[in-house]
């Protein structure tokens, strides 16, 4: 977990990815651009962080992860439990037929276009 000391909840992004190298790069990218960032390596860890840090503004999650739920189930869970959270899903795989993301959830393919992500995150958190 990083950035714990400077949390401003509505501008805090939770990054969830089991691929540590990718996760650290996302954390660095977001921190460099003024976001407070928390990170988790799976959905269970992410939910525990959400419980302990109310008001997290956005969650950016990978899809395929070990643990009790994948990224799709995680965003569905978060939408139900913490409705205002902006949700962003990233994956190296196209979304499968029949996969339903919660409303207003953005999907990005891997590798990420960092500039687009930053723009969309800013819009979601500032809007």
């Amino acid at each position, binding site marked *: 977990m990083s950035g714990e000391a400077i949390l401003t909840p509505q501008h805090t992004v939770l990054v969830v990815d*089991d691929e*540590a*190298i990718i996760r650290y*790069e996302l954390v*660095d990218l977001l921190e460099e651009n003024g976001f407070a960032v928390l990170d988790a390596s799976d959905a269970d860890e992410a939910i525990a962080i959400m419980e302990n840090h109310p008001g997290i503004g956005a969650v950016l999650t990978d899809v395929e992860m070990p643990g009790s739920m994948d990224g799709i189930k995680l965003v569905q869970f978060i939408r139900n439990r913490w409705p205002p959270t902006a949700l962003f899903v990233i994956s*190296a*795989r196209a979304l499968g037929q029949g996969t339903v993301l919660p409303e207003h959830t953005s999907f990005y393919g*891997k*590798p990420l276009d960092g500039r687009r992500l930053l723009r969309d995150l800013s819009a979601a958190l500032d809007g």
Partner: protein
Amino acid sequence: MWGSPPAVGQGEEPARTSRFCFLVHQRTPVTDTLAFLSGDGAMARAIRDHDWQRTSLGRIENWSASLRTSVSLILNSHFPQCIVWGPDLVSIPNDAFLPILGSKPPALGRSFADVWAEAWDDLAPIAELAFAGEATFIENYPVRTTRFGEEEEAFFTFCYSPIRDEAGTVVGMLDTVVETTATIRADRELQVANRELGHRLKNTLAVTQAVTLQSIRRAANLTEAREAVSERLAALGRATDVLTGTSWDAADLSMLAGAALAAQGDDRYSLDGPLVQLASAQAISLSLALHELATNATKYGALSNDTGKVSLQWRLEVDPNRPGTRLLIQWTETGGPRVSQPQRQGFGSVLIERTLRSSFKGITVLDFRPEGLVFTLDAPWSGTPGAGTAQ
């Protein structure tokens, strides 16, 4: 040229300009009413032996010329074909058609609708078109069939074409078919494999992107960034080699370590440990970490002089105080110059410690002992040696 062949037994030489006439000359005497069942194929024999009086076709000796000709045509073909005759749809398959029937009861003399009962709802309209005088050609038509005892989806490219008698009346149907199930399944598997390949490629690109950006972000200058990116991507390439040499899903720790350290061009490494399979994400993390450790050893550690050595050991261990089996990996440098704690943590250290800790869900310690750097990874491990992967 299409005139009557010379009568058998007259001793006349067939016309040398007409090979066709020669062949006709060698045929069985026309007095044999079963002469149209030429050849010794299984179906020719079966047709001879079949009790046709029990079918609407009646005694074989009384079959019409069009039926005889049709049967003769399919028996002399190596293409899977089946004649479907009369309002009762009596089936007469040729030898090449038999594999298509699988383990179904013999189709000869039975209703085609009965032979393909499980798919007849789909096939009947096509057959009706043929009996109405219209041929239908369909490629890769899916048919739910139970021909091997279990329901399966099979695919056929076929043509149902009408057979007319001398008066032009449709009296039967010719099913000419080739099974394409294997091709369709291979195509589908290829599509799945391509999708999986695309996923792995994009995931590898994402890792490459992260390694590159982290290397640039943490480099002191452009030269250092260029070298770091180049070397780390080469390390990533070596890990990919090991993964693609197996199933991609898992890689042997020994092979990974061997590939990572052989690239350093130094024979002062010793590797020792049992057969342990690592998941692909772990394999990539460990390969990158070993590359960082080896680079550090060459620049500042045990391999920066002529006498130092590096030992990489791993073992599986059951600790009575902790659940399950543990995988312990230890990198030990000896004989090098005196070691001191580095001033800043570069991406190399991040790769070694944090990335491995996260990938293996374990504990990592990078211990800069004065006598030599020691790195340890202690992680939960499941499965049997050589088969399981670190958790």
